């Protein structure tokens, strides 16, 4: 199945790249989304079956694949709105969508890859394909951001590769090593722990670039800033999910070895420092997109902590990532409208959004509730579980610090969002065109999902997540 998917989507991608006709483009995109959806459904139906040698429809991959497919719909929808309002020429639109399709395919493959090398390849591919999208606006800032993102990610991915090689050092056999996750799991048990530690360290640091964890979170922030809002939505949701999947796979690879507690320590520190850093920058940040990016970093940190705490933490981490994708995507889609309304991303130069654009204002209000993890937001439940896991694994100091800095983040987010919504002090020029309320439906849909999953998540999802975490200690 996957091979057809790859071929068809490749063809569609090429088609989009060279086609200049609007309707044809839409048809192609619809076609692609059909393929994407059908492959997703296929993947769910053929759970735990291999495909194309190096791919496997395992639970983890399928979950995030579903999220990706869902968000692809909305992202393509909002990309259309975005491009329409930018009045881009047909050529750049074609490039944009071609790159988008390539990105989606690359991410899908990265989720499903059951071979560490291949996963590596596709992750690098996502970097390259998203570069074109980040640079879409062709401004000097976009250029800088893209340069940084591509460069840092390439270096990071190289570090990961070094980690993989170190792994093979540790195994000590000079014959061919099977680098598929399944095979590695057995082989790792007879590697001495210092090699394992070294390898894990390199691999994790490499993947941090994608997931946006300290120490390699820096480039992702800039990418968020410069990219078109729909793409920022992708970067901070599905692309970060790619990083998470990679880290999760690595973690579960090493989980049964002797170094697990050490691993947890490293991840805990990564997570905690990420939260602290995001809190520190949230305090001073003026740019709405950067603010949302930092909040993503904060959530990634929380997820890492959840992963490191084990127990229900594994479950919570995956759940958290999913829900975070929903809320963050809707925020970034809304930011697009926001930008159209004010012509700026600078929080200080805006205000009274609640009255200027009621529908959008409500999205921000609900999204604020979602992000700061207050009920009915589902993140409330996942965070509760993560805290519980921390307590259960008796990381009390981490728990207290995390709670403290999370409160700081909440304070800042609330402050800024409320400023945007209600501040009356600025006398602003009214927006030139009213944004249609219909553009916010997708966002409301995502938020509704967020709230609903917080109360009563579908059984299938629960089963998938449990399936994904079942062979972790």
């Amino acid at each position, binding site marked *: 199945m996957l091979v057809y998917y790859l071929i068809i989507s490749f063809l569609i991608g090429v088609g989009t790249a060279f086609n200049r006709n609007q309707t044809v483009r839409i048809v192609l995109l619809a076609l692609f989304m059909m393929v994407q959806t059908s492959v997703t459904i296929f993947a769910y139906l053929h759970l735990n079956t291999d495909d194309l040698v190096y791919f496997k429809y395992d639970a983890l991959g399928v979950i995030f694949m579903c999220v990706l497919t869902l968000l692809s719909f909305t992202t393509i929808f909002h990309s259309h709105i975005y491009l329409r309002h930018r009045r881009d020429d047909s050529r750049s639109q074609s490039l944009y969508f071609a790159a988008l399709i390539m990105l989606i395919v690359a991410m899908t493959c990265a989720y499903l890859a059951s071979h560490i090398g291949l996963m590596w390849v596709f992750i690098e591919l996502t970097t390259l394909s998203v570069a074109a999208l980040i640079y879409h606006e062709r401004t000097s800032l976009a250029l800088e951001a893209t*340069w*940084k993102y591509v*460069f*840092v990610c390439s*270096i*990071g991915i190289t*570090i990961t590769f070094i980690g993989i090689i170190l792994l093979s050092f540790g195994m000590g056999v000079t014959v061919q090593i099977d680098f598929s996750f399944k095979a590695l799991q057995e082989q790792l048990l007879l590697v001495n722990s210092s090699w394992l*530690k070294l390898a894990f*360290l390199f691999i994790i*640091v*490499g993947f*941090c*670039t994608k997931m946006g964890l*300290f*120490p*390699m979170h*820096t*480039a992702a*922030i800039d990418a968020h800033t410069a990219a078109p809002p729909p793409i920022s939505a992708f970067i901070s949701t599905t692309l970060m999910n790619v990083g998470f999947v990679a880290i999760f796979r690595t973690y579960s690879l090493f989980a049964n070895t002797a170094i697990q507690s*050490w691993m947890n320590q*490293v991840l805990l520190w990564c997570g905690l420092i990420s939260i*602290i*850093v995001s*809190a*520190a920058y949230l*305090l001073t940040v003026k740019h709405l997109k950067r603010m949302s990016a930092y909040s993503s970093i904060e959530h990634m940190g929380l997820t890492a902590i959840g992963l490191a705490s084990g127990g229900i933490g594994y479950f919570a981490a995956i759940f958290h990532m999913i829900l975070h994708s929903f809320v963050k995507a809707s925020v970034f889609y809304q930011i697009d409208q926001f930008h159209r309304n004010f012509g700026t991303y600078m929080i200080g130069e805006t205000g009274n959004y*609640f*009255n200027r654009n*009621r529908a959008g204002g409500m999205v921000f209000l609900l999204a604020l*509730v979602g992000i700061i993890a*207050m*009920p*009915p937001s589902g993140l*409330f*439940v996942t965070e*509760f579980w993560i*805290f*519980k896991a921390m*307590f*259960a694994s008796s990381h009390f100091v981490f*728990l207290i610090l995390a*709670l*403290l800095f999370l*409160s*700081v983040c*909440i*304070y800042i987010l*609330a402050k800024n969002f*409320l*400023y945007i*919504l*209600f*501040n*009356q*002090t600025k006398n602003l020029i009214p927006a030139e065109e009213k944004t249609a309320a219909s553009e916010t439906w997708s966002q409301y849909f995502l938020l509704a999902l967020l709230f609903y999953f*917080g*109360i*009563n*998540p579908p*059984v299938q999802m629960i089963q998938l997540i449990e399936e994904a975490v079942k062979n972790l200690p």
Partner: protein
Amino acid sequence: MSLSLFILFVTLSFVLLVGFSKESWAGNIALVSVLINAGTSSWVAFNAVTGHPYFEILGGGSIFGDIPIRIDALSGWFILMMNFTVLTGILYGRRYMKHYENKSGMIPLHFASFIINHVSMIGIFCVQNSLAFLYLWEMMALSSFILVIFEYKKPETIKAGINFLIQSHICILLVTVGLIWVSVRTNSFDFNAISVFSASVNPEVSFFLFLVFFLGFAIKAGFVPFHTWLPYAHPVAPSHVSGVMSGVMIKLGIFGILRMLLLINQNYLTTGYFILVFSIISGLYGVILAIVQHDLKKLLAYHSIENIGIIGMGIGLGAIGLGIKNPILAFAGFAGALLHTLNHSLFKSLLFYGAGTIYQAIHTLNIESMGGLIKKMPQTAILFLVAAMAICGLPPFNGFISEFLIYRGFFEGIHLDSLSLATVLILSVVALVLIGGLALLCFTKAFGIIFLGAARSTFDHEVHEAEASKLFPGWLVVLFILIIGLFPQIFIQLLIKPVSLFTGSLSNGFQVMLLVENLQSVSMVTWTFILAIAVIAAIKKFVVRNRKTVTSPTWGCGYVATNSKMQYTAGSYVRGYRKLIRPLLQLNKKEENIEGIFSNPIVSETHPYDKIEVIFIDRPLKFLNNLLARVRFLQSGNVRHYVLYGVIFIFIVVIFSLLNDAVTYLTKLIKQI
């Protein structure tokens, strides 16, 4: 159809209804919804209070698991209290909001969150599943946050709103930690697990557990030093909201503390002392700061802190009673606390409604610019006077009854046990007396300056009495205030069940009867007092019936050109007092000196600021901010550094783990030696 499902259904449908309704309709729809919910819950609650607790299990799906819903006498009492205040609140609010229609576009959202707020409060009182409890609690905080920021056009409103949101979030975090602790150890979300757990560990641990919960709930209840959100949140909220918040919402904290006291079995004597001391500080500090406030609502907010202190004293006394196994102490304490909870919710909401009416009449809350309002709005004045006397704990109103019960307990306890108990109790008596006296000072000031004398400033619009439908809820409250004040024996009997939840272990039938008789005689004297007033009035009328009564200007002690500027102001009224407690206050003064013989007009301002806020909130935040500023070198914008971070991180981790290994190795070596 089970109760909870019914209420949830009603709420959902009405929230949607309000959300999509006309602004002018929202209030009434909300009223209907509140009526239905309050009606159903009150029915169950009343049964619970009279001894038929309610129990049901709500299926919470894969996340919450089974949600036990228990309405025992305690929950029942609180639900009844809460329902009444919320009801008056919405009755008042739907009139109050008429002034804002088609101005802010916030009204449907406002009333929707009012309904949600009400329901989540009902839920908090009866849901006994940790996660669901937290969920509801956050819903409550969130909805009340929306309620607070209604007048978002003022920047200070938003500021106060955020402050409120964060502090209630801290509160929820502490409670969360406590609940997580229990659920991790027992891995069950049911509240009964708490008592099981606390039974299984030694008293110190369970006291610590109680401490965690207490601190959490203390923030909500507004115990000093966790009170700092109150004086900001109450003034900026619409009056019916501040009435409900101050009347009911902060009682959630009290409820939490009482619930935990029930669930966590511990060394009650220590707990009692702890709570008592805490409450004394809160009570005194609250009223001490209340007096110097000249923003009416802020003044009332500080009084909430004071009354929370009084309630806390009751709880502490009760706990001590449990500790030394003395039923009458326990009964008096808990009964006093519960009754005062009700009383405070009555007169405080009444005061806030009054404040709201005044605000809408003259568009300011600054006491200094009021005066002589009693002639313009007599009914409001009477309502305010009743509430003011009630909050000072003066007979024949309800405030006295609860304070009397607590006094009873104190004096009962003095000659009972040890030296320490006697000393603590006499000091608490002094504290309670001082609180009473200070409250008297404060409310003579408030009432006197606001309503009496001549108007201190002129308003460009006509000041007139509020319409009847806005005064009606006030009169409703007054009715209850009087009933409690004049027939306390009835209410004490209503309290028997809730209190016996605590004192059940000690046999207290006899003492209850004793207290009932006691209150009977109190009410008798009170009646006599009223009678006496009537008689004297009659005599006076009879005596002066055919003498002429002259009206003339106020005697200015020889100075004839008196004007309203020469009246005593609020500031001057409390000046002597302010000089006494100077060290406790932080007054930000802005004074100009007078130059020349004929000096140009000068302005001097004095803004009281909360010293505890400086110590417990401002300084730590500053410290945290500086701390975080240290981290802000990372995003330097230079790609070379970005690459470096990863490498450095790897190095650091490697070095650390090497060091770690070395240390472990050395320790092993040393062990061998």
